[in-house]
């Protein structure tokens, strides 16, 4: 595995070095993101909606609507941080946060 990764041209650094960066993108499949969300206290209800760790309610995407796991595009720290798999949802996020 490590050998293959090396051949494919990946950079190899330890996590301590990686975490020194201010901005980091972690790219995973939906299931892996759910696993991370669960570890930080979120959950998924029986209809597939993401439930907040803070108030046990369905989280809202930045379009103001509840968001299902299969609609998820990205999770970004901060408020209104659940971005749908929709470029307009991401654009709205950029408009609110990027200079």
């Amino acid at each position: 595995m490590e050998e293959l990764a090396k051949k494919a041209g990946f950079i190899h650094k330890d996590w301590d070095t990686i975490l020194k960066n201010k901005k980091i993108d972690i790219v995973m499949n939906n299931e892996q993101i759910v696993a991370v969300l669960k570890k930080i206290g979120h959950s998924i209800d029986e209809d597939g909606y993401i439930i907040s760790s803070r108030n046990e309610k369905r989280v809202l995407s930045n379009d103001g609507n509840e968001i299902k796991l299969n609609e998820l595009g990205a999770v970004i720290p901060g408020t209104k941080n659940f971005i749908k798999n929709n470029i307009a949802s991401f654009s709205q996020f950029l408009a609110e946060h990027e200079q």
Partner: protein
Amino acid sequence: MSLPELVLSGAGILKKIGGLIRPKKRGDQRALSDSSITQRSIFGKNEITLVYPQGQKVPFLARDELPKEVIAKIKEQYSKKNLDVGKEGIRLITNAFKEDINRYQKEYSKPSTIDDIIPLLDHKYKSILKLSLYVERLLRDENHERVKEVKRDISRHYGKEGTTLCRLYSAGYLDKFIEYFSAQISKKNIDKRALSKFVNKELSEFIEESKFLFFIQQGDNIIHVAHKIVNQMEDPRPFMAIHASGYWNIKKAKKILKIIEEDIEKYEYRIKEINNPVKCSGSPIYYISLVNKKVAP
């Protein structure tokens, strides 16, 4: 600048219408889309996580679950209220979405004609206009499939308001608007807060008032559209326009014109037809303006 002025000025300005890496060349990766044997072998595993530290196009590969210290960092950041998310933070991105946001973010940060008025705009309008610029770029690249997807996304996220603003931009109706307010903002002693309030109000009203601009699209019923146009004539509107792009939509627009022929005369409108004012990505464009003779003789 009044609304009719903006509309009429726009009418003449239709020019606008219109993770993995390749090992051979770093920085030119198309994550998850390469099929070389090495990459296939890696992506045969389901538990792969790609991590892109700031500014790096080459990812760090994580094989197993994220370690505890990373989860702790994510947890800490996600509960922070004062985090400057534009400048810091760990973003979790689905692999299906990564390529889309990379392309968009690249386009988003390019200099553009709307840069001067950006500081005046509400986030919503800023985002829709940036998406409209993206649509324009995709059209130039003849990426019609992606254009459809982006327009669908605009409609889903912003509803009719988003679709309308995007169409107004594409049809050139906002050119004079952008030009005018770009000049205003550079003036000395301008009250930017008041100007911003005014610009957003104007945009909102323009969108609201654009009911008299008809953009013919797939699935439109010609009788229904013709009926809507005649209803507006009864009002009467000083200016109306019909836009169509592509062979079938143009055919529809011409049929609509035929249906409302008598009403055009009855309600005293002057027609101006423009065929192919500009060719946008190979698609023919058709534009008809209807000006009320009584209001604008």
